[in-house]
């Protein structure tokens, strides 16, 4: 696919571009900040933008804000935000719209590119991605007693994959069950966690992640 890359670290950007080209992707452009990214997208077409979260001018969370703006302006453009922070806060902000085609991925994924490519495919296809590391952090919190304890082991696995933004089919493939079984589990999960059932993956991921964050 046609990819545009934005990252202020020249070193990393070069490495990422080479990685993507190796996999056969077409690099439309690579830029160093959000403003340049937005300017290029006015002129050139792309299927996916890969954006670093921390860029000039403030070096805080330009990437997230830029992603939200870009999704508004170019509804067909998928955006993948790469971050070095395992903070659920930023992931929630990004997927908060609930319209899909966004993803929050840790930069470390480049060490095993298949994960990166897979996330790219999912997002470009309209899905939502929340890095598994972020999810497992949320799931791994030990709580005195929480509704999570009511879930079976299988249901916890399903919950985790839901939080990552995977579709029922993807969950079925990953856990090697039938889509029907997955559905049964998701229904049970919604009930036990007292969440409003929602089949739309994009809204579902948000609901689950926010629920997990709200655990204390």
């Amino acid at each position, binding site marked *: 696919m046609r990819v545009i890359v934005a990252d202020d670290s020249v070193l990393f950007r070069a490495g990422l571009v*080479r990685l993507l080209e*190796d996999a056969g992707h077409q690099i439309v452009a690579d830029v160093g900040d959000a403003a340049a990214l937005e300017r290029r997208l006015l002129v050139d077409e792309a299927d996916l933008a890969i954006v670093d979260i921390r860029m000039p001018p403030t070096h*805080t*969370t330009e990437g997230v804000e830029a992603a939200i703006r870009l999704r508004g302006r170019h509804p067909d453009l998928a955006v993948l935000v790469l971050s*070095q*922070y*395992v*903070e659920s806060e930023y992931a929630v902000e990004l997927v908060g719209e609930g319209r899909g085609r966004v993803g929050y991925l840790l930069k470390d994924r480049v060490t095993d590119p298949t994960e*990166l490519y897979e996330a790219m495919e999912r997002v470009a296809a309209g899905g939502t991605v929340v890095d598994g590391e972020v999810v497992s952090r949320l799931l791994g919190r030990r709580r005195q007693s929480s509704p999570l304890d009511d879930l079976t082991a299988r249901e916890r696995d399903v919950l985790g994959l839901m939080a990552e933004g995977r579709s029922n089919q993807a969950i079925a493939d990953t856990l090697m069950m039938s889509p029907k079984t997955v559905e049964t589990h998701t229904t049970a999960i919604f009930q036990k966690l007292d969440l409003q059932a929602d089949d739309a993956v994009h809204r579902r991921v948000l609901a689950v992640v926010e629920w997990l964050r709200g655990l*204390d």
Partner: protein
Amino acid sequence: MQGRTTAVITAVAGALFGLLVTLAALTSPIAGAPRASVLLSGLVAGWAFIGVGAALWVRFPDTRVGAISLAVGAAIFVPELRWIGGDLAWTAGWATTDIHLVLLAWLVLAFPTGRLRRSERTLVGSMAAYFALLAVAGLLFSDPWPGCAECPNNLLLLTEDADLNSIVWSTARWVNLGLVAWLVVAIGRKRRRASTAGRRALAPVVWALGPVGIALVIAFVEPALDVSDSVTEGVAVLERLALIAFPAFLAAGMVRANLALGRVADLAADLSDLLTPDELDAAVQQALGDPSARVAFGDLSRMVDPHGTPIERDGQVATPVRAGTRDIGFLVHDPAVPHDLVDAVRSTAALAIENERLRAELRIRLQEVEASRQRIAQATIEERRRIERNLHDGVQQRLLALGASVGRARSGAEGSQAEALAGIADELRLSIDELREFARGVHPAILTDRGLGPAIAALAERSPVPVTYNGLVDRCPTEIEAATFYVVSEAVTNAIRHADADAISVRLWHDDGHLRFEVADDGIGGADPSGSGIQGIIDRVEALGGVLSVSSRERSGTTVEGWLPCG
């Protein structure tokens, strides 16, 4: 009071004496007795000296100036005894004509302390000896009243010799002149030696010399001129009236000194309390009679008030206040305030001013120390942010770029090579993770990016021990939020590591310009408040103007609570 009574009795006695003598002279059978105008002016002069003498005696009982002035008054009357009648009175009266001048010289030189220096004693002694000699010599060769048949006899008359008499009196005139010159020089020296306050006190003496000087000059010149009797009479009256100038100026000077000293006494009473800087200024203003007066510190080119604020002197003067030989401050006041008053105030207030200076210095030092502490605390936080950013932008990016290279290599690798690269990739991931966690420990980016609330939420998320966090909405200055985060983070970490707690609660809330925090756990308690970790967070909080306390009892958990200023 004994002094008072004695003074009054002596004064009354002297006044009566003068009155009696004057009456006797007025009704004297002797031809050539002075006219009423002369006698009365003499009486007034004598009474003036007696009156002022009594006042000085009461006001300054430790000196002798009062008594001396009384003596001057009496000495003015004594010569008039010659008109009473009888040879003895006649001779004694003439002989004592100039006693009052010696006593007046003594008074002039002794005022206001009553003491004479050695040179001054020599002068007065010489005058006394001279006039005593003259008293005799003047009568040796002539009759004071030649051609007066009914006059009493001059008991000291040796022989009538006009030439010798003339010699005596001519010499006398020159010696008189010499003595006057010597007296003027002595007064001049006395004035030069005096402090400002001393000169102020001497002022009446100096002014009185004017009229008295004129009178002396006239007295000197008159015998040489051949003038009519009425002129002679007029001159005599003038001489006596000129003398009044002296007690008159003395009285005025005393009144002035009284008023000023009264105020200084009030100042001394005020200063016995511990005063705030404003109260000290008010007391000084009251004492100097100058509402614009102030106490100041520092040096002339850069004066500050007790709070450290620089002072502008518009038209005012700054008089140094000394304790011993050290300058301890200034009195800033209107130049019109009399110098002796300023002197009295500055000596009285010196101790209070020194006190104030020390307190002001302490205040300034304390402010400097607090400001410095705050700067250090802020710099530390800045430093941590910089380190985190350097890590992120520097080595972390490098490792990630390396990761990308490893990833690329893995795509084309097979078999054992693929395995090896997988191993390298794992290690690299671990390194990146560790570095990320380390950087987060130095300064979590989310604290800068999203603020204290989300940062605490993220902290709570990560905690292996359940942390309940009540959420926070309003923002505070960056360094306050950062300090609060580190405090809470440290407290939570301590609870996780040492307290063996099942639950930790973090509460943050705003209250009246304070950001309050409370971290409580239900663990084993027993935290040591003097441990370096806790001391560290106490220092950090206090450096930014906040307060922190740790309460920890065995088996009942630990609570770390406090506040930092916010808004």
